[in-house]
């Protein structure tokens, strides 16, 4: 059966506190089910029928499981007391089990492993939303504050109250939008055989929508952006305020700066496409220059760096996290070489991000996908369909893929969003 929803207000969006009840018996013919649903709405709460099994013969009992939302915990509590009278009983009668973390950097045995979907835990008889939602973490409960949050394994501290087992934990699956707007146009998440202009338009709408709503747009980019000559498009998008956060590695920043200072990317001229003599040293020379100045910002302040993606980031105050890898040259001073610290920096920068654009990088896309809650929309643009597939396989199932060369994509995107 399809989910049936009801809401007393104009907005059906579930919010606030939630509880699930179960009702059995001849609930259709006795009008008990409609009565329960009516009472939920009359109380100002909203519901969703999560499961409904109708008995086949008249004597067979039916069964329904109903999620109920209310803004106010007291309203919900009173409503539940009323519904019990009509035979609807709370499903999750038990609190989540807690175990105290005994050592740093590891969960207690039997820990609950998170998904990237909205999660709630039951503590002292009440459901609380888990904050910092992220896959592959544990959930720490602050009993005094009545809060719960995702904690990565490496960040566990002794004494933390961690959830163990599955009892008292509830995950709300996200539904794909049913309407044709947004990304409803795509049924398969990745395909090279899709009209690219439609895909670009959807990204344009999503980025405009995020900016209008005061939300942040995250760009996760690989060096191919620079190699393909797209750095100017991205620079324009940053300058015009369409990107608020940038995640990349040493390579994107290095080749962007190489292009800005020397006109090449990996030693190849971006104007005529020809390799320049001693061009293979170019990126090392700019890294050295930046390191001598103390960093990218210092290079901008000194007038050495005057254009490009990193220049615009400094000028626009765009938050960027450059995460290091084992093959990096230099690296640039801003590159965070401790991956755990880099993950923490990325987590902190994700606050307020509503839309993420992953362009031409498998490594940083997967790393970011691991940190993102499922509610954040993700579009992954790559010439290689496997990049999108890898993301989905690692749990970032909300990803929509556009298989295309990044330059025409970014050129179209910039032309739509930041003409001129």
């Amino acid at each position, binding site marked *: 059966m399809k989910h049936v929803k009801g809401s007393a207000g104009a907005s059906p969006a579930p919010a606030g506190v939630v509880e699930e009840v179960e*009702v*059995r*018996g*001849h609930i259709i*013919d*006795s*009008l*008990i089910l*409609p*009565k329960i649903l009516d009472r939920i709405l009359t109380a100002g709460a909203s519901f969703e029928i999560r499961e409904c099994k109708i008995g086949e013969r*008249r*004597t067979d*009992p039916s069964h329904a499981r109903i999620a109920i939302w209310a803004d106010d915990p007291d309203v919900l509590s009173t409503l539940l007391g009323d519904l*019990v*009278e*009509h*035979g609807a*009983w709370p499903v999750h009668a038990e609190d989540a089990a807690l175990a105290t973390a005994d050592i740093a950097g590891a969960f207690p045995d039997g820990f609950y492993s998170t998904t990237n979907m909205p999660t709630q835990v039951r503590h002292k008889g009440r459901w609380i939303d888990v904050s910092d939602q992220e896959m592959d973490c544990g959930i720490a409960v602050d009993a005094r504050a009545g809060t719960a949050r995702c904690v990565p394994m490496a960040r566990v501290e002794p004494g933390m109250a961690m959830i163990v087992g599955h009892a008292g934990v509830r995950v709300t699956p996200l539904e794909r939008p049913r309407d044709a707007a947004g990304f409803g146009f795509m049924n398969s998440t990745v395909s090279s055989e899709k009209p690219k202009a439609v895909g670009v338009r959807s990204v344009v709408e999503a980025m405009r929508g995020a900016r209008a709503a005061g939300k942040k747009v995250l760009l996760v980019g690989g060096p191919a952006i620079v190699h393909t000559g797209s750095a100017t498009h991205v620079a324009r998008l940053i300058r015009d305020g369409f990107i608020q956060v940038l995640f990349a590695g040493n390579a994107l920043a290095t080749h962007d700066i190489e292009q800005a200072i020397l006109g090449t990317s990996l030693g190849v001229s971006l104007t005529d496409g020809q390799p320049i003599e001693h061009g293979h040293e170019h990126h090392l020379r700019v890294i050295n220059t930046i390191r001598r100045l103390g960093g990218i910002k210092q290079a901008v302040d000194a007038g050495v760096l005057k254009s490009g993606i990193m220049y615009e980031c400094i000028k626009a105050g765009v938050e960027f996290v450059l995460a290091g890898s084992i093959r990096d040259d230099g690296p640039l001073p801003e590159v965070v070489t401790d991956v755990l610290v880099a993950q923490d920096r990325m987590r902190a920068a994700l606050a307020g991000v509503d839309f993420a654009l992953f362009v031409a990088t498998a490594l940083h896309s997967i790393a970011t996908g691991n940190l993102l809650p499922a509610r954040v929309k993700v579009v992954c643009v790559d010439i290689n369909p496997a990049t999108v597939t890898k993301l989905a396989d690692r749990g970032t199932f909300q990803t929509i893929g556009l298989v295309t060369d990044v330059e025409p994509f970014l050129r179209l995107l910039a032309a739509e969003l930041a003409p001129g």
Partner: protein
Amino acid sequence: MSQPLEPRLLMCPPDYFGIEYEINPWMKLSRGADAARAGEQWRAFHQTLLELGAEIDLIEPVHGLPDLVFTANAGLVYQEVFVASRFRHRVRQGESPLFESWARARGFEVLSLPHGLHFEGAGDALFCGEVLFAGYRFRSDARSHQWIGERLGVEVLPLELVDPRFYHLDTCFCPVALDTAIYYPGAFDEYGRAVLRDRIPRLIEAAADEAVSFSCNAVVVGHTVVLNEGAPKLARSLLDCGFQVRPLAFSEFIKSGGSAKCLTLRIDGEEAAAWKYNEARIALGETGGV
């Protein structure tokens, strides 16, 4: 258990009947029942049932259990099963062991509800046709009815009781035949009224002024309805529908919130319960009858 041929009822003489506590809006400690008159009314009722051909089991009255006379609340009879009551009010909980031992002695399989659920027997659960109509809110829990439906494999339609004066289903609803029932609409909400109208082909409505004199709390033996006197409109409706009526005085019991129906438990199945006839047909078939 063998199928009795005559209608069979369980009653309890009112030797210790009285108003010793207040657990419904009718009971007033300040307005006690007249023991002598109560005895007269009970004996007249008992005699009438005998005249109508009923066989009557008597349970021994017990001092300190004034409401033991209301045997309708002993439990629910379904075929060879007796679903024992679990009283909501502590003052009546002492009745349960007596009713359960009576049921066991009578050969019933006694079913007990899970801990924490309340259920007050035929006071809140009445068959009309194949369906068990069940009242909840004041005395029995909706969940008890769900449990009973699953255990007995019958369709149970719980009806919310919304007026505390009609705290048991049998105070406002009385199936009189497979397709006919008396009801007082004011005791139910719109959902309950809709269910009754949808599922019972012929509903005889009791007027508000007659409902408050417990006219719905009637006993049916064959085609005769024994009810409280002072309900001429309902009596007329029943006559028009082809039933006989026997109005009697129950004033002393009404002071306690009960009348004819409350004073009896039908042991062999109510006239309106379809399972009784299914069983009888099976029994006849086995003996090579009709």
